[in-house]
């Protein structure tokens, strides 16, 4: 008999944090998870939305959430865990009421993102990946968020905060902390990270009509074309070899 000293232990397995506070997942959540599962030809497709929903309810991917997903989709918890730990938007420790992101991929980094992140870390007193003790803010170092013409970019609850500067960041965080209304530069009034996660999961919050149609850089070419009287060409006159269907 193998006479080794190892005991069964699981303490170091990669894990969703199961030791935190109890879950808020209730029958309503489970019904919503089942509803999500029902939206797809194959229910497993709903796993990503369901994990977003779990975060909106529990403020993280909770142990109860993982088990509920596995149960509803008929897959193993190891598989749910494999998915939940693959995607960066899923948090294993509780996120803050406001989730702050600072882009530091090459372009944003050199245009000021590094300084912004440094600034925000100091202001909040936490490092990236952490949540303030009061649960108000969590901070994430972002990879490119598809708004390079608005660099440097920050995000609050996955809403764009374009063309940021340390001063603007300072003001943004103060306003959020004080509960003042804050608007995304190209989006809606900031609610909370959990509410945002609920929308991502697939439950509308009715705010689609807020915000502008486009930011100024998005319209740059259009504006320039207008200034120069440029347009798309007209349809060619049907010639002998006209190909119009």
């Amino acid at each position, binding site marked *: 008999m193998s006479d080794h000293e190892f005991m069964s232990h699981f303490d170091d397995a990669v894990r969703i944090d199961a030791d935190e506070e109890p879950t808020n997942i209730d029958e309503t959540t489970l019904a919503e998870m089942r509803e999500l599962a029902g939206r797809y030809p194959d229910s497993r497709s709903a796993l990503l939305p369901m994990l977003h929903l779990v975060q909106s309810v529990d403020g993280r991917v909770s142990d109860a959430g993982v088990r509920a997903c596995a149960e509803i989709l008929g897959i193993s918890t190891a598989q749910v865990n494999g998915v939940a730990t693959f995607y960066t938007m*899923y948090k294993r420790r509780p996120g803050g009421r406001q989730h702050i992101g600072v882009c530091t991929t090459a372009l944003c980094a050199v245009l000021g993102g590094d*300084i912004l992140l440094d600034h925000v870390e100091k202001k909040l007193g936490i490092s990236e990946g952490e949540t303030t003790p009061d649960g108000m803010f969590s901070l994430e170092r972002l990879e490119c968020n598809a708004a390079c013409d608005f660099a440097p970019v920050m995000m609050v609850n996955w809403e764009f905060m374009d063309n940021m500067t*340390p001063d603007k960041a300072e003001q943004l965080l103060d306003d959020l902390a004080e*509960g003042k209304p804050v608007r995304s530069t190209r989006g809606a009034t900031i609610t909370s990270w959990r509410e945002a996660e609920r929308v991502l999961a697939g439950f509308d919050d009715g705010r689609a009509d807020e915000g502008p149609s*486009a930011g100024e850089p998005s319209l*740059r070419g259009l504006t320039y074309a207008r200034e120069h009287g440029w347009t798309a060409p007209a349809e060619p006159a049907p010639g002998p070899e006209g190909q119009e269907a």
Partner: protein
Amino acid sequence: MVDKLTPIVTAHWGEEGSWRLENYVSHGGYGAARKALTTMSSPDVISLVKDAGLRGRGGAGFPTGMKWSFIPQDNPNPKYLVVNCDESEPGTCKDMPMLMATPHTLIEGIIIACYAVNAHHAFVYVRGEVLHVIRRLRKAVAEAYEAGYLGADLFGTGYGLDVIVHAGAGAYICGEETALLDSLEGRRGQPRLRPPFPAVEGLYACPTVVNNAESIASVPAIVEHGAAWYQQMGTERSKGAMLYSVSGHVRRPGQFEAPLGITMRELIEMAGGIREGHELKFFTPGGSSTPIFTPEHLDVPLDYESVSAAGSILGTKALQCFDDTVSAVRTALRWTEFYKHESCGKCTPCREGSWWLVQTLRNIEAGKGSPGDVDKMLDVCDNVSMKSFCTLAEGFVACITSAVRHFRSEFEAGCNGTPAWELFPYEASALFAAPRELVTVTSTNEGGAA
């Protein structure tokens, strides 16, 4: 003579409430879908898009109509259209404003594309980190259902279509089409082996077309105005117009919809030039995964063939400009860190190569590299290049090897004791005047609204 800029997809972005159905319809929106479904056969639509010469706008430039024609119509399984709105390639920022401003363009394109390939179910996979984009798109889908543009029996033809907007959860690799399909199936987003190709066994192992959002959004205008109209724009083998995204150290960055073949010199001029007092040092033609270009490439026509011939890739036409304050070592490191962060971990060279190269580059950035590190780094890149499972790893190979090719001395300096920030003080490249040492430390805000 076609104008230098040709707003088509972007034509109505600036309008008040541009995202609303009423606005879209007021410009003749859904007319192209009606035309396709009521006057054309599915093969006709495919031929039209082939004739127009539309090529995929997601990076690879594969002809869209041909992709559609690969869907085996004798396969008894359902067919699916999956629209790739994962837009995550550093520098790429065209699809998000499009979905935010005129999501109905995409939906109309989806209707036409699905009709062409005989799909009755389409999925729009949007990266998760863009809340408002998802809101707008979902609302547009709801409006389209309500107006009868989606659902059963479109335009009285008996043809039915359902669209699901699906939010991702943070993974660059999901922009790779097979990883996207795995992700959409609720799995870890890791690329699949090909064959089978998605056209044969894609989503749920059924025939699937995966198209970039911009490709699909380009379709309604082609159906509306015809192939000949579209062919007036562009170069001989790169037809049409597309969105060029100019960012970085230009005065007025932004989106420019232009015929293929416009040059970087023209685009930079339209973007107001490089910022005051500085010169262009290098730029990416198609996002961070494409080898960088330098001012010598300013007149390369930005079409698929010309960029290729000049040693890079048109990619997603994400033109990130870096001026003379920027360290090439710093950007190479940051991009490599990006790829390391986003590597799915499935294959050895990408997973381990990015892990290794980030360490080497960090040493070089800090001036702690050793003599020989640059060559070793290039050899490690060679051991990665063309050997990884998907093309993600080519991204860091491209940004490292092209940066070394053009700016080797900066890397060598890092191997001889000089940190990158000494050669290029990092504060100088920021858009705001806030030297690090002046960034004040403020107290942590406590309390506030809870």
